[in-house]
């Protein structure tokens, strides 16, 4: 964030993984580690939730994050605040420029309301979250308003709220540096009924670097 840090080199990464289209992923980030989410093919929304690793009742809170920031969009420097008011992580680099945390995740049930009952039987982010969270002893109760990386949701002064075409280009990335040990959960969004994925869900890549102090 200071611009003084050495660039992160893929060859120095501690972990790298491609998340197929429509699939979930999770991993514990240790304090100081940086997670890079790469929109490999462009225009792909990435839904994300964070939980304190030692007490998952403490989790990412969109309203606390927006209140502390005083504005509605997630961007470089945004501190991701928990429901206990603590900074869990921050956005330490961003080559896209626009991310959302007000639109939540898609679900079978909300798709049926928004796009008609036939879309109830399409895969959705909440299905991903439920299955991935179950590996950590968490349930639907634990799903709160999430982050939507690379998702473009302008809100105009009248309140009009629109998911529009993503602005991320192939290879755009966002870096999230952990300020505490966090369980980081991703759903690579399967939505095909709105433009968040350009109507064509694609794979993404996640890369993790250890804290610079740990590398020396």
């Amino acid at each position: 964030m200071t611009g003084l840090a050495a660039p992160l080199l893929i060859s120095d990464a501690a972990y790298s993984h491609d998340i197929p289209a429509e699939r979930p992923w999770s991993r514990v980030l240790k304090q100081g580690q940086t997670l890079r989410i790469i929109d490999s093919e462009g225009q792909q929304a990435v839904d994300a939730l964070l939980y304190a690793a030692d007490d998952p009742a403490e989790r990412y809170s969109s309203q606390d994050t927006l209140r502390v920031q005083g504005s509605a969009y997630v961007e470089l420097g945004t501190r991701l605040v928990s429901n206990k008011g603590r900074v869990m992580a921050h956005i330490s680099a961003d080559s896209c420029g626009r991310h959302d945390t007000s639109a939540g995740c898609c679900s079978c049930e909300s798709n049926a309301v928004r796009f008609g009952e036939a879309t109830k039987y399409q895969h959705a982010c909440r299905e991903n979250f439920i299955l991935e969270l179950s590996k950590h002893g968490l349930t639907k109760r634990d799903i709160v308003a999430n982050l939507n990386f690379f998702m473009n949701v302008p809100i105009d002064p009248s309140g009009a709220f629109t998911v529009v075409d993503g602005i991320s280009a192939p290879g755009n990335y966002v870096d999230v540096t952990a300020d505490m040990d966090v369980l980081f959960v991703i759903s690579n969004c399967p939505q095909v009924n709105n433009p968040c994925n350009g109507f064509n869900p694609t794979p993404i890549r996640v890369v993790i670097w250890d804290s610079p102090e740990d590398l020396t």
Partner: protein
Amino acid sequence: MTTARTKQEISAANRRRYEELRAAGQELTPKGLPEATALDAAPIAPGAIISREHVPAGWYATVRLRRGEALRIVDDSGRSSVSLIGWREEDTSERINCADTVKVQWSAAISKGRVILSDMGRVLLSLIEDTSGAHDIMVGGSTPASTLAAFGATTRNTQDNLLSAAAKIGLGLRDIPPCVTFFAPVSLDAEGRFLWNSDRKRPGDFVDLRAEMNLVVVLSNCAHPLDPARPSASGPITLIRYRAPPPAPDDPCRTTSPEIVRAFEFTDRLYT
């Protein structure tokens, strides 16, 4: 299988449907919303009132509402903001979902004629009366951290109130989702910064919420974190629980858009 559509054709059809829904949701629907209720309008028939209570500044109330009952929340002093969360009584894993509420209605502006949705594609509450139209669904209520930052000391706050209320019905921190806050005139500027519009608050402003499912709701009467007059200015509120008239076939809250018609269809199925 000669009629099978290609991936591109499906994408194009989905894009067309999205654009049609967007045009309807953002251009047609807002024109059909009812006018705000006048401050001296919508009297409640005395025989319909089930209960009435006053909640002092800084405190909270838990209210059970049967489907078809309504709750009037009155900002008696014109200085209060009232945060609300709610669960379906029979299954508290189903609860208010602010993100789905704005997404489905294509708007973060909550006003008369709008509804508040659950995370299961059903309607929790309908705004059948509303004198204010200035409510917040994005920033949320006060917290220990926000009051400490604002006043140098932790005061009574919405986060702690919601936790206390949840605990008394066997729920906890995991059950507390983002909230909506009534009489909290928050708007956005063109850059996305939040603004507080104090000229949108009046003594006696009220909102009537009709329960569309059997619910437990919690209301926290704490100054909104963006309210520059906080905290000493906050006043008491009045809650009136009453039997709402049954919705007519053209009920404004049930008919605003195809999305809302579907949400009510899914809700009504719980009771048929």
